[in-house]
């Protein structure tokens, strides 16, 4: 049908003459689209800004959790069961877990003449992949007199804070690494003496770590106790500030280091605000589309006789509906494209704000903003065509 041209029959279809309400509808749609697109972009901006970077992180956050001790469960067994561990491992926001195994024997450490003090120690072991810096020397075989230690940076910092008050020297990481620690491990079945060397410091694990087989060998041979009791677990997650993760841990009564997740509450609130804005945008769009649907129905009602005659003469309802709907396409296109441009301008300005780390945000809008814009254009056009076709079919 090469000669068929909607423009030739367009004068038969009476359009809306009330320009004020028509432009009011356009403005409403534009505002709704702008709010929705801006909400989508802000959502992703928040994700980027509140996502902390740690050079030793390898793309994950590591959080230590234990069971919250309350008056009700005080004195009871608050260790993690196999079922607890299984549930943690399969939680949606948790990538991997590693329990911390601890010493059942008594471990007493002294530094000889270097530092005139001795102390009981807790020793723990964890899956090697969870430790941020693991040198090759962090290994032990039964019979070996030396034992490598990985020391928490936080503990060294705490020591250096209280050391002067106790008349003790402050120590650097390098000095600590050169200190020979005399480690006496004892239990009901005997005593073993070792020389401990600090081979690395950990920013991630706040513990004194020993190789796993050192712990298990001495637990067996000094105490005969081979049972596994897990009081602490490290979880590996993509984002420690994920409100869903924090909520999951809270619901299960797990205690965690709040300092690690300090942004989660802020992030959660901001996400809710942005989501509410986005929903508001969708409502405004829906109202604007409803207004346009009234226009269409009015237009079809006014042109009823002409439309009925066109259909009687053999004009296809689908073709007529599509042709009428397409007349709105330029309007929708202009509205949506201009809203994308304004959103991009807002994004440029947002990046210049003093509290924003510009490097964390791309210059251009997130791809999902464009996807939402295209989806809106398709929805609006389809909605129009479907409505016109429905009204035309009523005329036949």
């Amino acid at each position, binding site marked *: 049908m090469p000669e068929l041209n909607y423009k030739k029959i367009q004068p038969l279809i009476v359009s809306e003459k009330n320009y004020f309400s028509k432009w009011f509808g356009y403005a409403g749609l534009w505002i709704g689209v702008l709010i929705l697109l801006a909400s989508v972009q802000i959502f992703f901006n928040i994700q980027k800004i509140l996502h902390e970077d740690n050079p030793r992180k390898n793309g994950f956050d590591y959080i230590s959790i234990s069971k919250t001790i309350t008056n009700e469960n005080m004195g009871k067994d608050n260790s993690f069961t196999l079922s607890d561990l299984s549930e943690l491992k399969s939680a949606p926001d948790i990538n991997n877990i590693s329990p911390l195994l601890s010493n059942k024997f008594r471990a007493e450490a002294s530094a000889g003449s270097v530092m005139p003090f001795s102390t009981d120690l807790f020793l723990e072991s964890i899956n090697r992949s969870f430790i941020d810096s693991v040198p090759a020397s962090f290994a032990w075989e039964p019979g070996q007199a030396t034992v490598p230690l990985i020391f928490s940076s936080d503990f060294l910092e705490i020591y250096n804070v209280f050391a002067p008050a106790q008349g003790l020297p402050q120590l650097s990481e390098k000095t600590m690494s050169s200190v020979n620690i005399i480690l006496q491990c004892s239990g009901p079945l005997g005593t073993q003496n070792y020389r401990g060397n600090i081979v690395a410091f950990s920013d991630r694990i706040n513990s004194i770590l020993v190789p796993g087989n050192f712990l298990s060998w001495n637990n067996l041979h000094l105490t005969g106790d081979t049972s596994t009791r897990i009081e602490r677990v490290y979880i590996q997650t993509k984002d420690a500030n994920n409100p869903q993760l924090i909520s999951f841990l809270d619901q299960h009564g797990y205690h965690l280091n709040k300092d690690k997740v300090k942004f989660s509450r802020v992030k959660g609130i901001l996400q809710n605000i942005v989501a509410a804005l986005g929903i508001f945008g969708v409502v405004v769009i829906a109202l604007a589309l409803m207004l346009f649907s009234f226009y269409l129905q009015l237009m079809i009602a006014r042109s009823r006789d002409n439309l009925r005659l066109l259909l009687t*003469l*053999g004009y*296809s309802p689908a073709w007529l509906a599509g042709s009428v709907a397409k007349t709105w396409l330029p309007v929708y296109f202009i509205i949506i494209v201009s809203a994308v441009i304004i959103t991009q301008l807002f994004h440029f300005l947002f990046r210049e704000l003093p509290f924003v780390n510009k490097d964390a945000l791309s210059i251009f809008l997130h791809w999902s903003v464009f996807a939402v814009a295209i989806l809106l254009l398709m929805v609006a056009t389809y909605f129009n065509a479907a409505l016109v076709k429905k009204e035309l*079919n009523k005329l036949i």
Partner: protein
Amino acid sequence: MQISLQQIVPFYIDKSNINNSEVWNKNITISQGEHMHIVAPSGTGKTSLISFIYGLRKDYTGNISYDNNDIRKLSNESFSLFRQKNFSIIFQDLRLFENETARKNIEIKRMLNPYHDAPMIDEMAERLGIAAKMEQPVKTCSYGEQQRIAIIRSLMQPFDFLLLDEPYSHLDERNREKAMQLLYDECEKRNAAMIFADLKPLDLLKGERVLRL
């Protein structure tokens, strides 16, 4: 293509009044190339019959089929295709766009599925004596002129069946002859059937089957 009418009876007709009808409640087949003349006084259902066949109304019992397809089961889209390719019609009430010109009225139908090029409009208008009226709004033309415009409109597309509902009621004998001849010529080009409904038999017919309603 073939149209079959199987025991068609409009809802509004009392069945006791149709015993003498050669159309109602009968089985009739109309094939391409065949002409049929339906004769009936006013108010006996000529327009209803044409409307039933064209698919505009469904208030009847019985079945109408296009090539064994029951037209009651056709969608609006399917009807539009039939009306573009297989059926053309001249309504008793003409149904023109009154505010548009004669040429525009004809062009609106022609461009849907053109059988003739645009210059043919002028040729036919010349033949029927309304060439001077082509650029006038239809509402300013006389009823007879409007009938001729409607006739030309119906001939702009391909068709297998041409339905006519009292198309010459306001034409004098000379113009009626010209219009009739034009219709015969166009039907012959397409090997189309003419289903022609009028109040009385016409002298101008050429051996059509005549059925009384």
